[in-house]
């Protein structure tokens, strides 16, 4: 291939950038990133001033254990979510079997169940007094716990299982979008050249879907590192537990910020390694939209297998917890039914929707600026803007308070000096602070998926549009957005549901007399009144389901199938 053609494939020619419009794009991206990265830098700043050097004590005592638990947890959750997410995505995209259309959206349902909720549901089921062991004792005539062995759910393995069951939809979503976007002829060509179906899957299909799957996996890993509810409940001491211990018990916020920084570095290294290993790959799925996707026609036995692959995660990750929560909800209905529900639900819905919209807009701005101006600097901005996701929510919340309160106090002082008027706290302690925190935290979700989707659109599209006199902004609206529809919907959905479930940051930032569904659940759960929180938990799950169904339907329609 000659150099000129190569250049064309890399990126739009640089003369496009000489236009003022493109420069404005890049400038806006820079400013937005600065704003979004503020809380993260606030945490790094806090890390510079610890109350006390915690490291000697940590290294001599618990650090090795925190590290090994964290690694094992990450490894376990990665494997489990990859296996479930990729296999289900492939099956519902490419195989013809009864119930396929139902599973297409139903497989997303576990995503609506917060990890801390599923953890407590299974603990209740599998603990000694729970249904399972009670039944076993009755059946075998055992007296008490010393008569038999039963795996302890409150363990590292238990935590892996719980998180895997609710986090796999990240991978499922992104892998499925990637499988749907790739050209069906690729598979056919590989088969006609004599590769087996399985071989084709591993050598052709997966490598093409890899960028999307990698984004999904990095989201899963960040969520895993972030989780405090589950590991706390299961008494699995990870780095996150150490972080909270340093903050809450030793009163050393700076030390906690240092641990958060270490975790952040950790995630960055992982993501960078993955990208580095893909550095020589360039792919454009020049998909012909008229080309229908031919699903595999399978034997009855194989159809049964497909059914099993899809049923298990749905059953364990959603149906069981929903049924148990439903049972608690009826059992404690009188105690937990209050008038606050509508209000809390509305609060959750409003904040989550606002955050979904703002992450989408900012994510699009960043991903598209990078397309217009793909330089190392721009790539660095992309990375910086998604750092918030790799920070535990509670720490990030403090990072949000720092700049907002500083601004408020500065502004208040100015107003007093100039107009003798007290503006008080304008931003901190308001709903704005929560939406801002959600945006900072979940921007990685939308920016990451939009970026990988944009990379798949061949630059010749841009060039055709631009050479016909369409400016960058209009090209985005008229050419790219229609092609990105599925990804946009997916990203909005993921962010929305994530915000519905978000707990630690919401707790710290919310205004007076203001509850979301998650904080409402937490009030009970934090006081060892788990069963009483059944009803509000169920409402979180149900509230998460509706958008899941609505949006996944429209994703399904974004490609014509036969």
């Amino acid at each position, binding site marked *: 291939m000659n150099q000129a053609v190569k250049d064309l494939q890399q990126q739009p020619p640089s003369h496009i950038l000489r236009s003022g419009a493109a420069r404005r794009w890049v400038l806006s991206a820079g400013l937005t990133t600065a704003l979004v990265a503020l809380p993260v830098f606030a945490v790094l700043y806090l890390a510079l001033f610890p109350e006390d050097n915690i490291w000697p004590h940590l290294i001599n005592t618990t650090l090795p254990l925190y590290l090994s638990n964290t690694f094992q947890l990450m490894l376990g959750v990665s494997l489990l979510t990859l296996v479930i997410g990729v296999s289900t995505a492939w099956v519902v995209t490419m195989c013809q079997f009864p119930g396929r259309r139902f599973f297409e959206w139903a497989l997303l349902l576990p995503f609506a169940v917060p990890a801390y909720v599923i953890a407590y549901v299974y603990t209740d089921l599998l603990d*000694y007094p729970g249904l399972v062991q009670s039944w076993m004792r009755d059946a075998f005539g055992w007296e008490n*716990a010393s008569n038999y062995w039963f795996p302890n759910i409150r363990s590292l393995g238990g935590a892996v299982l719980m998180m895997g069951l609710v986090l796999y939809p990240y991978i499922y979503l992104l892998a499925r979008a990637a499988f749907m976007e790739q050209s069906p002829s690729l598979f056919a060509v590989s088969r006609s050249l004599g590769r087996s179906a399985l071989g084709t899957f591993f050598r052709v299909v997966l490598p093409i879907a890899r960028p999307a799957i990698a984004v999904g996996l990095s989201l899963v890993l960040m969520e895993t590192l972030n989780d405090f509810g589950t590991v706390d409940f299961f008494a699995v001491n990870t780095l996150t537990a150490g972080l909270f211990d340093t903050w809450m018990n030793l009163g050393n916020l700076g030390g906690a910020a240092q641990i958060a920084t270490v975790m952040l570095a950790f995630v960055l290294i992982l993501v960078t390694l993955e990208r580095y290993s893909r550095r020589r790959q360039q792919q454009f799925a020049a998909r012909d939209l008229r080309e229908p996707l031919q699903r595999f026609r399978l034997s009855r036995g194989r159809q049964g297998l497909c059914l099993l692959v899809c049923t298990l995660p749905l059953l364990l990750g959603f149906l069981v917890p929903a049924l148990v929560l439903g049972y608690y909800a009826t059992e404690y209905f009188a105690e937990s039914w209050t008038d606050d529900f509508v209000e809390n639900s509305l609060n959750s819905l409003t904040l989550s929707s606002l955050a979904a919209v*703002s992450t989408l807009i900012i994510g699009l701005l960043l991903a598209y600026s990078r397309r217009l101006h793909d330089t190392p600097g721009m790539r660095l901005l992309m990375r910086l803007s998604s750092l918030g996701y790799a920070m535990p929510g509670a720490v990030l919340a*403090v990072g949000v*308070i720092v700049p907002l*309160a500083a601004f408020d106090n500065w502004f208040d002082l100015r107003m007093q000096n100039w107009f003798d008027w007290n503006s008080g706290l304008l931003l901190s302690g*308001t709903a704005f602070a929560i939406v801002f925190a959600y945006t900072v935290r979940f921007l990685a979700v939308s920016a990451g998926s939009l970026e990988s989707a944009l990379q798949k659109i061949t630059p010749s599209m841009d060039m055709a549009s631009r050479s016909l006199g369409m400016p960058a902004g209009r090209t985005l609206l008229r050419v790219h957005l229609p092609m990105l529809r599925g990804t946009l919907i997916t990203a909005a959905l993921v962010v929305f549901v994530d915000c519905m479930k978000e707990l630690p940051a919401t707790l710290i930032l*919310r205004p007076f007399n203001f509850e979301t569904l998650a904080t409402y659940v937490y009030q009970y759960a934090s006081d060892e009144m788990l069963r009483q929180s059944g009803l509000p938990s169920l409402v979180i799950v149900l509230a998460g389901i509706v958008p899941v169904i609505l949006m996944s339907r429209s994703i399904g329609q974004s490609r014509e199938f036969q």
Partner: protein
Amino acid sequence: MSIRTAVIALATVACTAGSLQANAAGEVNIYSYRQPYLLEPLLEAFTRETGIETNVVFARAGLAERLEREGRNSPADVVMTVDISRLSELVGGNLTAAVETDTLTGDIPENLRHPEGKWYGLTTRARLIFVSKERVEPGAISTYEDLADPRWEGRICTRSGKHPYNVALFASMIAHHGEREAETWLAGLKNNLARRPQGGDRDQIMAISEGVCDVAIGNSYYYGKMLEDENQLPAAESVNLVFPNAEGRGTHVNVSGMALTQSAPNRDNAIKLMEYLTTPEAQSIYAKVNYEYPANPDVPPSEAVASWGYLNPDSLSLNEIAANREAAVKMVDRVNYDN
């Protein structure tokens, strides 16, 4: 132009959010580490009596940081907590204001408040030992020190050693015995654990009824709450309560408490609320709702709580316990208590 839209959207959010802000007029703002449902009956009664509206934010972490960052503009008037550690942290960060009125100092005994009035205890809870009715002879265990006796090897359950309730207990052991002896004791206790520390205080009582262990440590009020819950009643009925060291220095107690903030915009109302919470009426409601002991010595505990046995509280000042907290946390790490 998407950027402009984004800016406008965010600005709109900011403005609507800004209008949600509390205005100082006949109200009092509370940052609470305590569940709202425990406070609600009291706050309602307070509003009925005084006409002052109450606003609450509840969280388990981060409120102190929020208070600090909000600085002199913070809307919070009163902070309520469930543990001495949080209170001493607030004092340490210079976030609480000294307040002393005849009512406050008259109602709350000296060992349950800050010497300058930077925090006040409202209720106390005793850290008890629960033993199996079936498998432990009455009188076989009577002190915290007994928990390290090798005869209990593999028979004790506790929640995480890092939990504030355990940290405070271990800090009191350091105060009474010195750090070295306390660490030997803690290592002995760890050696007697039947399983890795997990769950909450109720789970330890459940574990006794399951035959996992014979002895557990837990706060007094959890027992009361378990008697209320038909699912947990059988477990609660399978244990006897021990008030440790009742014959000696007394049983370790922790407080739930309150403090006035430095920045309080509604200072007068805040002090009214604090004074109200120490009155006999409020004290008995507060203690009854959560099966705790009133901090006001003139107010008897509820009948249910009194029926569990007589509490002779350790007179060790809570300020002393707060001073030993960090040493206790590090001790927990050194004996590798949680793993």
